[in-house]
């Protein structure tokens, strides 16, 4: 065992220490949150060692520790895979979590159960680490389900609120639909390949892989909130803001994309699945961007923008560029987590006000948050030489020069332009102009926990993209030559979005709708998706459960067919056949007569 594996194992082991400490008196200490935060920061620093070594040497490692079970010819053991994806993602996730933990010390300081909150966040991080480092599908599934359950617990953190509980249940429901796909893929691999080890799966014959790949795509759709299973992500904003920053922007929701990246060796030759993936991603990125345009809740806008970026990642996988999608996962983690933290800072300062119409003029009151928010938004839109640029621009370029599906490409471009539009809208309404919030609110962002954590991610949002893309070797050959208009396309549509949104906002600021247009309603009501799906389907299902399953079948028909009808039939037939009339004296009389007669005959017999 060289320094590589030992240091990565130390990183993983360190994360479990605060969980174990939860059984000691440490857990009732007020310093437990700081302890968790510091542990994660150390884990981050240690995790840099293997990452550096990986960047230097480029060696994949796979370790197999504890033999769990062998069934027939299938061996399952605890095994970790430290390859390109996990080695880059682990430090990124730890860095982001470190900042978010520090941010939560500030954000959750008045919560009586803050220690439990930190424990949950850490448990989530551990399951996420299991997910990204897993080398077999069972272990991957442990992490996969683990992040789902932790998201249930964290979304429902304020368990007294009905909305939080509903959102938590909704998240589990949509994730669970995705899990069915995962289980289907597992079943297929087991039946046909007799293995769950990734290496052995990748050696599979590349024909007829449609069933497992559809399963994996379904899993990714559920976890990464792609179109059809997307409504849980905006609903999940009921959870505390640190949860949104950690789970619903940078780590958990990218697990689906990560899964597809992991299984990319199977997908790269399957054109059907790539087309489906591309279209799914394109629909998602456009639809959620449209929804983001007219939302008023600041967290919802950021959530929809996350969903839109996830769609973009899926598009990237659809055009057969998993490494680019992975790069976008890493860069996206920095600025999206920061955007959530900035909105958390605003929400906290404005006394839990989330409506951007009631903000305004915050650039004077919250200068640091404003700076970070603007940098984050610019990075999100792919402004040159900020973090987002390095992945987003490359994705759009590659999509432009690929010859897969012009329609999907067009949708992606429109969505890219809309990214700029809704970012402008946040900046315009929340930060610029006159204050529209209550004047008695005291605004204070000068807490070192807040400033430091956002600052760290701010540096990340500016430099991380450069650092990551400078250090990793390009694994797919980038397109070197292309016409000017294709090269500039990403920038042009983004700037177009900016200008349009700015003009519209300036012009419409003092005008009022007479009545909202159909398009506005479509966007504001989230495409009527929740209205249709969340009313109709549960209602039908529950009605079916009540009416047909419970009342009709169980309580009526099955009772009637077996027990009731038998007892009824017996009763009727016995009353019909029997001559029992309750004449007890007569019966006793005949009984006695029979007895005497038989005794007499018996005695005479002898």
């Amino acid at each position, binding site marked *: 065992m060289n320094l590589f594996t030992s240091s990565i194992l130390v990183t993983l082991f360190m994360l479990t220490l605060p969980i174990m400490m939860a059984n000691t008196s440490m857990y009732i200490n007020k310093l437990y949150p700081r302890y968790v935060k510091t542990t994660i920061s150390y884990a981050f620093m240690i995790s840099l060692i293997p990452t550096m070594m990986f960047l230097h040497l480029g060696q994949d490692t796979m370790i197999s520790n504890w033999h769990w*079970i062998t*069934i*027939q010819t299938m061996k399952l053991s605890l095994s970790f895979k430290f390859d390109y994806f996990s080695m880059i993602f682990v430090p990124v996730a730890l860095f982001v979590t470190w900042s978010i933990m520090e941010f939560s010390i500030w954000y959750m300081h008045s919560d009586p159960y803050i220690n439990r909150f930190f424990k949950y966040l850490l448990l989530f991080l551990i399951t996420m680490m299991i997910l990204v480092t897993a080398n077999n599908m*069972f272990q991957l*599934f*442990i992490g*996969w*389900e*683990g992040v789902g*359950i932790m998201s*249930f*617990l964290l979304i*429902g953190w304020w*368990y*007294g609120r*009905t909305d939080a*509980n509903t959102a*938590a*249940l909704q998240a*589990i*429901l949509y994730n*669970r*639909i995705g*899990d*069915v796909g995962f*289980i*289907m893929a*597992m*079943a*297929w691999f*087991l*039946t046909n390949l007799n293995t769950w080890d990734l290496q052995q799966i990748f050696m599979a014959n590349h024909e007829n892989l449609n*069933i497992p790949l559809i399963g994996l795509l379904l899993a990714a759709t559920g976890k990464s909130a792609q179109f059809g299973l997307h409504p849980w992500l905006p609903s999940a904003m009921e959870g505390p803001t640190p949860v949104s920053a950690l789970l619903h922007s940078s780590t958990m929701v990218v697990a689906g994309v990560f899964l597809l990246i992991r299984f990319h060796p199977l997908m790269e030759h399957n054109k059907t699945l790539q087309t489906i993936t591309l279209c799914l991603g394109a629909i998602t990125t456009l639809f959620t961007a449209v929804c983001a345009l007219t939302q008023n809740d600041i967290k919802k806008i950021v959530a929809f923008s996350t969903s839109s970026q996830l769609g973009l990642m899926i598009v990237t996988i659809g055009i057969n560029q998993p490494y680019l999608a992975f790069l976008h996962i890493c860069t996206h983690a920095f600025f999206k987590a920061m955007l959530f933290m900035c909105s958390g800072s605003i929400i906290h300062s404005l006394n839990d006000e989330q409506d951007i119409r009631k903000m305004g003029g915050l650039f004077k009151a919250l200068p640091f948050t404003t700076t970070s928010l603007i940098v984050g938004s610019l990075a999100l839109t792919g402004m040159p030489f900020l973090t987002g640029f390095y992945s987003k621009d490359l994705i759009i370029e590659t999509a432009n020069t690929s010859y897969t599906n012009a329609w999907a490409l067009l949708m992606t471009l429109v969505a890219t332009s809309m990214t700029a539009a809704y970012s402008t809208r946040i900046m315009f309404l929340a930060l610029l102009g006159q204050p529209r919030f209550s004047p008695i609110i005291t605004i204070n962002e000068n807490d070192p926990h807040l400033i430091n954590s956002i600052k760290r991610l701010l540096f990340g949002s500016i430099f991380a993209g450069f650092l990551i893309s400078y250090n990793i070797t390009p694994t797919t050959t980038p397109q070197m030559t292309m016409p000017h208009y294709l090269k500039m396309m990403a920038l042009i549509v983004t700037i177009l979005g900016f200008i349009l949104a700015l003009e519209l906002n300036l012009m419409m600021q003092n005008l009022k709708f007479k009545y909202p247009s159909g398009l506005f309603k479509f966007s504001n009501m989230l495409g009527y998706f929740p209205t249709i799906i969340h009313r109709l389907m549960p209602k039908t*299902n*529950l009605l*079916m*459960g*009540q009416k047909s*399953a*419970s009342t009709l*079948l*169980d309580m009526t028909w*099955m*009772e009637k067919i*077996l*027990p009731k009808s038998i007892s009824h039939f017996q009763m009727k037939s016995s009353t019909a056949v029997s001559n029992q009339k309750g004449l007890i004296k007569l019966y006793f009389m005949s009984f006695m007569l029979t007895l005497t007669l038989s005794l007499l005959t018996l005695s005479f017999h002898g």
Partner: protein
Amino acid sequence: MLKIIVPTMMLIPLTWLSKPSMIWINTTAYSMLISLIGLTYLNQFTDNNLNFSLLFFTDSLSAPLLVLTTWLLPLMLMASQHHLSKETLTRKKLYITMLVTLQLLLIMTFTATELIMFYILFEATLMPTLIIITRWGNQTERLNAGLYFLFYTLVGSLPLLIALLWLQSNLGTLNLLVIQYWTQPLLSSWSNTLLWLACMMAFMVKMPLYGLHLWLPKAHVEAPIAGSMVLAAVLLKLGGYGMMRITILLNPLTDFMAYPFMMLSLWGMIMTSSICLRQTDLKSLIAYSSVSHMALVIVAVLIQSPWSYMGATALMIAHGLTSSMLFCLANSNYERIHSRTMILARGLQTLLPLMAAWWLLASLTNLALPPTINLVGELFVVMASFSWSNITIILMGINITITALYSLYMLITTQRGKYTHHVKNIKPSFTRENSLMTLHLLPLLLLSLNPKVILGPIY
């Protein structure tokens, strides 16, 4: 085998001769010790089985169930303490005696070598259960429930007796160890079809198969806590155990006869799960969730592949512990709220945080969170049914989703939200209850570390 049976028998004099203050602690402690003896049977060091005598044997299929049975008696005793506290001493002793008798019969059922002895003991377990349900249940509906319980099971199992007699005269033996070598393939004919039905229906009713399950929710709801626990944890598993044992006699007819029952189970598990979504009664919800989980076991047993047998065995053990734990939790709510209705016991997390943790863990195991053995069981069953027919994944998937939904619905309704005013002065959770939950959960977690011991025969 006598080292388990004799101590279990001696629990009865122990109960009657103990001091009034010591009856619970004595019986609980001794039955716990007995269950520790049984643990050694989990170590099946040969590929075949452990023969103790001509009458008793265990193999890797019956050993986990045997251990589950012995493990459950102390838990039942712990769970029943509170609701018997108002009864007289004699009645308490009688109740414990009933539980011990049931335990004794169950142990012998799981280890019987002769099928006819298995049958007799299988029927004999009805009596103590019936007495427990109809004597110590809470409402008058318990009599009706007892009637349903008795008649469904009896009507289902009487044909088995005839079938067994016929088999004995035909094969010359009903010894489980010998029969697998002597059995003749059953050809497809009307009489053989009837034989198949006679052999299987007894266990299908016991499992219960969807359509023949009406006795189960009634019996579960009306039984006292120990009755519900033992019903869910062990008595249902008699059906699965019996099916796995008797299918060796019924080949190759099962391949053909399985279809209607497979369909009924696959359909039934979705129907029962969706009934769970609409339940207002906590115990009834858990009972229906048992039906839905047992449908998976029926599917697995009927598929008859090594993977499906492993899944069925694992799922039976996992479900035994999980559902028993859920019943205990429901009972601890019932003892405080005095109602089984869920909306009367809302928001308990605020008042009983540790109990909320048990609820959470129980719900998570019920929805088969990896890496618990519930998942191992369910996953293997899904694998087996997927390789049997790819389309079943749709039904299985719907069931997986609904299972997660109702488990969390139960959790959210009872634990989350604002608490109601009438629960303000409830008692805190007792150490007895917490240790009861721990003793349910500990085996679940430990078995997840090494699920091989409960996978049954690994071929």
